[in-house]
Each structure stands twice: as C-alpha cells, then as structure tokens.
C-alpha cells in the first residue's frame, strides 16, 4: 500500500474525505487486509490518545500566580494605555481639517502665483458621497474639473487575529 493510500485511510478515519472518496476507502478497508490493519491501528491509537490526556495541576499557589498576571497586565497598561476612541465627529472632521491645513500651507508658500483655492472650492458642488468607499466627488462645471476626495478610514481594531 503506498503512502497516498495510507493517508487516505487516515483521512477516512478522521471524516476528512468527500462522500465518493469515503465510499471508495470504505470498500478498500473491507476488501484489503493490509488497509484494514492500518485503519485499525490508527483508530486504536487515536482512541487511546484522545481519551487519556494527562491532567496537570499548577504548582504555583493561586494568589502568587494571579499576582504575577495582575502585575503584567498593569505594567502593560502603563506602557501602552488603551487608546481612547475619538468621538465620531472628530473622526469625520479630522481629514477635512487636515485638507484645510494643507491648503493653507500651500497658499502661504505659493502666494499670488495661484488663485485662491477657495474660489475653486466655492464653484464646485458635491456630486457623489460614497461612505462605503470613504470618497466624496466634487465637480466644477465652470473650471471643467472633477475632484475626488478620498479620506483615510478609521481602523481602530487590532490586526485580525482570530481566536474563536
């Protein structure tokens, strides 16, 4: 029996095969003594191990063990205090405030060489606001310009680490 077949026999035992494959392996186990012997050995080992995990008890006294955990929690919180989530209005206005600040800086640097941005902005009107994509589209017919404002999205959650 080759290795691939042995692994199939094991997958059958663990219910990891598709229905057609499972039927095929079931027939093999019935008809082939070698496959049956491998199947029985794997099954017996699995049952032995599964039902007999050694239970261990911590030697550390409860209070001592907990005090160490508590100290670690407290020192971690001191080192990196939980970031308080900013209110919604702050999160929404932050990109706009940033844009205004940037525009102000640009104007102060370039001075009279360019027309004030406010002229363009006032001539524009919002034509699309897509909160899912976090974009707002403005169009100025007189200038023949379309501006798409893309704001960064708040990603307050930690990296997706699934435990459940």
């Amino acid at each position: 029996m080759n290795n691939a077949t042995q692994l199939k026999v094991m997958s059958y035992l663990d219910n990891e095969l598709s229905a057609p494959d499972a039927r095929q392996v079931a027939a093999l186990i019935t008809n082939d003594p070698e496959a049956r012997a491998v199947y029985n050995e794997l099954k017996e080992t699995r049952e032995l191990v599964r039902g007999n995990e050694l239970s261990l008890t911590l030697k550390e006294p409860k209070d001592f063990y907990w005090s160490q955990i508590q100290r670690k929690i407290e020192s971690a919180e001191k080192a990196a205090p939980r970031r308080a989530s900013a209110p919604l209005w702050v999160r929404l206005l932050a990109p706009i405030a940033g844009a205004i600040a940037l525009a102000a800086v640009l104007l102060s640097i370039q001075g009279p060489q360019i027309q004030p941005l406010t002229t363009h902005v006032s001539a524009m009107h919002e034509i699309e606001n897509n909160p899912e994509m976090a974009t707002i589209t403005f169009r100025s017919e007189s200038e023949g310009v379309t501006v798409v404002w893309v704001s960064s999205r708040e990603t307050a959650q930690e990296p997706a680490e699934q435990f459940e």
Partner: protein
Amino acid sequence: MPSKIDYPTAGDEVLVKAAQKGDMPAFEELVSRHRDKIYARAFSMVRNEEDAVDLSQEAWVKGWQRLNQFQGESSFATWMTRIVINLCLDQLRKQKRVKSESIDQMEEDSGGVERQMPVLNPNPTENLERGELRVRIDKALAQLSYEHRTVLILHEFEELEYKLIAKKMGCSIGTVMSRLFYARRKMASLLAGLKREELQTEK
C-alpha cells in the same frame, strides 16, 4: 445600583461580561477556574514547566487585553486555550529558527521509519489503571518531535480539522496529514514498546 456578583458561584458567561467591563476580580475568578487547563495545554506543547508557566501567564494577559473580542462563539476556556496554543506555536517557531535542523525533521522529510513499520497493536491498557495509562501516553507524547506532538495535540485533544491545523502551523494540509500519520504510527510503536517492557519486567 448595580447588582453584586457572587464570583465563586457565577457562571463563566457572567464573569466574562463583568470582566469585559473592567471587573478585575471577575477575571481573577476565571483565571482561578481555568489556570490548570491553560497551563496543562502549554506544558503538553513545550514540555518545560517554567516555559509553560510563563506562556500560560502571558496567555491570561492577552486574554484580558482582548476580552472585548470574545463573542461567546466558543466557551471561554476554549477561547483561552486557543490563545495559549498560538503563543506556544510562536515560541516553538522561534526556538526552531535558532536550532539547526533536527534529526526528526530529516526523518519526517524522508518519510521516517514509520512508513515501513509493521502494523502494531498499541493497546497497553490491559492491567493498567487509567492514571497509569495517562502517564504512559504522556511519556510517549514527550518523545515525539515538536511537529508530530503539536499536530497530535491539535487533532486529538483540541479536535481541530486538518485545514485549521494547517493554518495554525503555517503549513499545507498535506504536511498536516503526513505529520499526523507518522505521529500516530510513532505513538503506536512507543505504546507497544511500553507494553513489551512491562511484560518483560513481569517475567
């Protein structure tokens, strides 16, 4: 006025909800209830008492920090076990990077001796008390390479599917199958060996 929780008699769900609101004594009660289980899982994987204590404590710290992510889709103990398993896997990976390639790894890559091994009857249960049997199985587990032991623990004790084990261990499903197969055959061989030793001692 909020109702006071009687920590020792409250269910895990009640304690978790309280802890999620920052109730540290509720979390302390959860630690007290499940600390042996979390430590035992860490020890089964790293096979070193000191490391297992450290890892189990680290798991509790992480558990506290991420308590708001716990949605109750599994039991709290299962959720905590997953955390400690992830920490153990990280630690074992780091150790493995430092160490040179082990003989076990080379054997695994070449198929090992288990492929050619004759089929055995590993059952050493006759005349053995359950406690004794558990000690023997634990001894046999300790003799496996970390990859074989881990895959066996995740499959037999945590009852994870091949796909999930592969994800946790950062390898392919084929590798998981191969490791599980050799791990079981090695266990069969070790347990049968223990049985033979016992018979010889009795004579």
